């Protein structure tokens, strides 16, 4: 495998030819915020938080979905990017009903951490306050759509790692909702193996163990990558 040399935030970085900017940056200790990205799953390019500036193109590029190139000069932390990231996190908070004070994931929530990381102090946008359901028809797990950010990490974990595809999205725009099977209650979704990978993958408190209470839920998203790695070819 050939290697490429590029510059990220002024730092010379060497990366494998098939690596993304995100991977290269992480190896170099440069942190780019992400939400829909999860190690072990395919890239979605949907949250737009990892957008970076690449010198020579006016368009912002998603770090998770852009391959490194020789001599590439990447900027991950400019004024413009910081403003965009803060605005995107605010938009997510305004979209559904994210009430940390009563959330199972509070203190262990990627969205909460992102808000702190991007310096979000308040939300400038109108809260859309949609009416969202909570589905606790499954024996072990529940989903609270109020906390879902539509990152589809559960959809991809279920499809790509468990190989089942119980989850998908119905509707469009802000009307998009996660569904199980052909929009039946989770407990009636015949394809679900109750493996819990969706729970591992969820960045917020949307998918939770039934019976857990405020701030009790600790996701283990890295276990998805561990499962994928364990299955792949040994070296």
């Amino acid at each position, binding site marked *: 495998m050939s290697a490429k040399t590029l510059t990220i935030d002024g730092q010379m970085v060497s990366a494998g030819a098939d690596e993304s900017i995100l991977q290269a940056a992480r190896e170099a200790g440069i942190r780019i915020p992400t939400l829909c990205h999860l190690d072990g799953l395919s*890239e*979605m*390019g*949907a*949250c*737009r938080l990892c*957008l970076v500036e690449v010198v020579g193109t006016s*368009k*912002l590029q*998603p770090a998770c*979905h852009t391959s490194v190139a020789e001599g590439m000069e990447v900027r991950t932390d400019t004024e*413009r990017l910081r*403003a*965009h990231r803060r*605005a*995107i996190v605010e*938009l*997510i908070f*305004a*979209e559904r009903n994210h009430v940390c004070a009563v959330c199972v994931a509070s203190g262990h929530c990627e969205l909460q951490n992102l808000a702190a990381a991007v310096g979000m102090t308040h939300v*400038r*946008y*109108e809260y*859309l306050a949609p009416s969202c359901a909570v589905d606790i028809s499954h024996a072990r797990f529940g989903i609270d759509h109020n906390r879902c950010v*539509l990152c589809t990490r559960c959809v991809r974990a279920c499809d790509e790692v468990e190989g089942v595809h119980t989850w*998908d*999205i119905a*509707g*469009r*725009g*802000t*009307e*998009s909702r996660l569904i199980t099977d052909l929009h039946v209650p989770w407990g009636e979704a015949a394809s679900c193996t109750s493996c819990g990978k969706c729970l591992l993958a969820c960045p917020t408190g949307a998918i939770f163990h039934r019976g857990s209470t405020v701030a009790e839920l600790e996701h283990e998203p890295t276990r998805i990558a561990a499962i994928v790695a364990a299955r792949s070819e040994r070296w």
Partner: protein
Amino acid sequence: MDLTELHGIAERERARRKAIRIHCCTSLGCHASGALELQRRLEAAVEAAGRADTVEVVGVGCIGFCGHGPLVSVEPSGLLFERVTPEQAPDIVAALDGGPCAAQRGDPNHPFFSRQLLVVRRNGGRIDPERIEEYIAAGGYQALYDVLHDQSPAEVIDAITRSGLRGRGGAGYPTGLKWATVAKSKGAPQGAPRKFVVCNGDEGDPGAFMDRSILESDPHLVLEGMSIAAYAVGADQGFLYVRGEYPLAIQRLSKAITQARKHGLLGSQIFDTAFDFKVEIRVGAGAFVCGEETALIASIEGRRGQPRPRPPYPAERGLWGCPTLINNVETFANIAPIISRGADWYAGIGTAKSRGTKVFALAGKIRNTGLIEVPMGITLREIVEELGGGTADGSPVKAVQTGGPSGGCIPASLFDTPVDYESLAAVGSIMGSGGMVVMDDATSMVEIARFYMEFCMDESCGKCVPCRVGTVQMHHLLDRICNGEATPAEIVQLEELCQLVRETSLCGLGQSAPNPVLSTLRYFRDEYEERLRHEALAEEAP
């Protein structure tokens, strides 16, 4: 099928024709205003007048003057009748030789017609789109024969490149370059060595109906263009993606595909060569975003119609991972004319960077609503004032919206802007697929911006955050401005959101969604400010 047979079909068709042809437009606009009944009455009237031996009534494709339908024209005399009612049918037959007639006479020499230059619409209103024989008699499928027998794929691509044709879907990507990329693309190493040609007929801009009209009026022209493209890039399978709201276009395309297959013009060993090409129709289920090429591909594959990040572009990895050529309906409709009349002829039309003609759908507050095909480089003023005839009630035209929800509003003061890709982009709009909505003095530009934002909000697929939530927030702000509730700070916030959504959205829908707002803010900012809450203005005043 060989050349003799092709010419035989054309000759038999010409011999079959009667001396006088009454053309009754049966495209959707006239269809909706009763053209089918009119056609039946005309046929009965011809019969009753005992002229069936010399006169025939033909249901034809779009004549173009849609706002004045149902339309009837007569060949060879060139008579034109507008807003014809079924009761006037006997009258029209009686007036065939030029006598007086109760039906409203149209002027075939009106600038609406005389200023047009017909390339892709040359058969519209002249042939029956449901009969392949008429298309062949008009010279159809000769271009396909010529390329299959006399030209290499590289020569075909070279001709398209030299013609200067650019994508008519809106973005204006050079067609020859796209073809060359697909032709050279090998596809993924593990992928099947197949290539596809896809025709994007998911036209969805409000006020735009060019592609529908082409598909309804001349389906074989599009099929021939696709076949030539398939030969050039090395594809053996094509898909026509048509939106479900176009039932007549779908019906006529299905008929056209069946006829072409029957005549050996689609299928295996076309014109006795090694070239195979099959075409299937895929009907869209009502999502605007499926006009975006990667979402369209997902939809054809049977998946949820959502875009994915590019690169890789479909030219490299498209349908089922194979190299795929995607062009718009009008782009394909230009191909056969370019091949038969030559790249130099085509390149001689239009401007240096935008060659050829463009079909526009004139709609809104305009006297002459309908479809026009004009050479690139014509000014907006010529289109609006000469072809369009200004507003219906004579009030001044305020602006023209081009490019639908991805485009912008161009104020009357800039009407001397030539219609080409670069000039329209320079004034903050885009060429777009060809929708042209005319607005008069009574139109509020803030409300127009809100209308387009509502459209984008409803059509956002929901995949990426900026488009999904940003369009809702922008619509909310526009709503507040329209209702007189907003403060000056909210206009600033609106502008910031425009910037965010434009720079960070995943696909073209989101990236261009702010354009109607940005262009109206640029030219009609006073209309926004007039609507602000008055006490808020007083508070902020020094």
